[in-house]
């Protein structure tokens, strides 16, 4: 089966998986293949390998997709267009503030706030938040037939889907606003519990934080509606039938378990699942050793060859067992295997090779 069939009719593809399984390269290969078949495709990556980014001419961080020169793509016949961008979370956050702030002055004040600066850079979760935000923006623009999103590495899918919600919750700040504005309805509703809470909050957090937060929310005032609206739209987009989630994994025990739990999370969240890609597979030994005889090379080298073959056999057996577990968990959903390449594949050559495996 080819990725092209799996993604028939999709406008958005989200590649999910644990770290270190080749997710970024797989996302780029999927985008490349779809573009080669005639679509105008944008791939949004979080942190591509420098060599790959450089080779594609992606060294500029302008936070907007730029078109990849097809001459860089080592002999792939390109019917459509391949666009790519590296996500800059800080920049995306700033753009978001610019777009929802009522005036440029208000936007500038927010961007200068200490809480905001902390929020938009250092915090785990800001990558996830900005990734879906950018995805939504690109999808709204209607500029592309297909958008492929490479997600930040996460141990489990929940991290990815929870982080935006957590940040939204914070940005909406309903709990805190109730505490800070003594006259608000919220305050009156929660009056009984809130008074000791407010006092303790000061004692526990230190006054400075509370003041900064108060300023932050005062500045955000009136904008929370826009955040909420955006969150609902993003949610609709992720659940749309024209969206597909592709799991990317490797055939080791840990990533396989992660992939199986990802699959469950997607099902629980009723998110549209398209299939799984298993990267770096050692094909079964039987297919490697068709002419089982070792050449006559003398006993010492023959011994080494036998060791190399048996070591490979262990990995091939391990991969087969994990792939079988994953297959059972996929319940008939498409599964694509990409073989292990002996040299590092984080360049255009590797990208093209993986793309050929995915689009057969």
């Amino acid at each position, binding site marked *: 089966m080819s990725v092209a069939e799996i993604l028939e009719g999709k406008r958005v593809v989200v590649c999910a998986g644990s770290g270190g399984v080749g997710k970024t390269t797989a996302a780029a290969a999927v985008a490349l293949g779809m573009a080669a078949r005639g679509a105008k495709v944008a791939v949004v990556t979080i942190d591509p390998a420098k060599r790959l980014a450089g080779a594609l001419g992606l060294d500029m961080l302008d936070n907007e997709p730029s078109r990849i020169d097809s001459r860089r793509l080592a002999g792939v016949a390109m019917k459509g267009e391949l666009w790519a961008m590296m996500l800059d979370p800080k920049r995306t956050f700033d753009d978001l503030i610019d777009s929802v702030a009522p005036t440029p002055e208000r936007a500038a004040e927010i961007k200068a706030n200490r809480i905001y600066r*902390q929020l938009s850079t250092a915090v785990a979760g800001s990558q996830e938040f900005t990734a879906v935000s950018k995805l939504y923006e690109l999808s709204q623009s209607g500029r592309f037939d297909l958008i492929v999103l490479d997600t930040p*590495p996460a141990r489990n899918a929940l991290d990815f889907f929870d982080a935006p919600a957590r940040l939204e919750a914070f940005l909406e700040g309903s709990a805190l606003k109730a505490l800070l504005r003594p006259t608000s309805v919220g305050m009156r509703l929660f009056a009984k519990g809130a008074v000791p809470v407010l006092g303790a909050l000061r004692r*526990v957090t230190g006054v400075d934080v509370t003041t900064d937060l108060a300023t932050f929310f005062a500045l955000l005032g009136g904008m929370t509606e826009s955040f909420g609206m955006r969150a609902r739209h993003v949610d609709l987009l992720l659940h749309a039938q024209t969206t597909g989630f592709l799991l990317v994994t490797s055939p080791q025990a840990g990533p396989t378990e992660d992939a199986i739990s990802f699959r469950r999370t997607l099902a629980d969240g009723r998110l549209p699942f398209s299939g799984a890609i298993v990267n770096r597979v050692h094909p079964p030994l039987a297919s490697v050793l068709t002419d089982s005889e070792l050449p006559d090379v003398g006993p010492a080298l023959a011994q080494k060859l036998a060791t190399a073959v048996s070591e490979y056999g262990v990995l091939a057996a391990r991969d087969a067992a994990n792939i079988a577990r994953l297959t059972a968990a996929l319940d008939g959903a498409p599964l694509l295997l990409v073989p292990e390449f*002996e040299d*590092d594949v984080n360049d255009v050559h590797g990208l093209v090779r993986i793309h050929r495996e995915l689009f057969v």
Partner: protein
Amino acid sequence: MPSPLLQRRLIFVTGKGGVGKSTVAMALAGVAARRGMRTIVADVNGAGEEHEQQLAPNLFTLSIHPQRAMEEYLSVKVGGTAGQILGQSRMFSAFAMATPGMRELLSLGKVWELAQTQRRAWGGEPYDLTVVDAPASGHGAALLRTPRTFAEIAKIGPIASQASTIAQTLADRDFTAIVAVAIPEDLAVAETLELDEALQRERLNIDLLVLNQRHPDRFEERELEVLRPLAAAPAARLALAADLRARSEAEQAARLEARFGGRLQSLPFLFSPELGDDELEQLGEALAL
């Protein structure tokens, strides 16, 4: 001169996703436990067991949940009914959990608590060594940076003083060590070098770099010359591919050696279907500690 690794009370293990951080954390803790040190391995993803569990003699494990860490902190710090009310107040916890960096700070607070000789958790017996199976590089560095950020933002108040105590503990090379794990592949090496720079900006240092999953380099040049014309034979092809990998790994290892020199230790790739206790012990003993 910083203290030897196992003489510290707290070790953070970080590195790119998928390079074997958890394995190295368990292997390290296993060595310590077998030497009679009461050792705990803690992760901060809150996905596992939220109470301290014993795995083997002297070896314990715990998954830190930020929410639970907060309740514990409040009951100890604020105390009594107020602490209980706060811990259970949905409003307060929604606020605290959503505050940027708060989950990280609370998790680190629990890590710090585990590593103290006098523990404040009720009934908590002290550990000789706490090994943290930390998040991957980027998030790992962000985690380690959190206390300093908080100490700078919240200048006064208990959080500020707690945060600066934790920050000092993390920077104390007699108390805390940072172990980075890498594999000899381009991406992982690049991320390790970036991690090292990010940590140095925080005035933190990688004490030990574990270069995990080194494949054997067993073929000599004259043997390869014999094999090259035989590449049509699958065994020879496998051998040549293995050699190609070994060369590429040597190149990547050299990049790390140039930066880390004597702080680098290699672990072999284990050709076994899964990593059990025996394999962990084998890896632990391969680390000269």
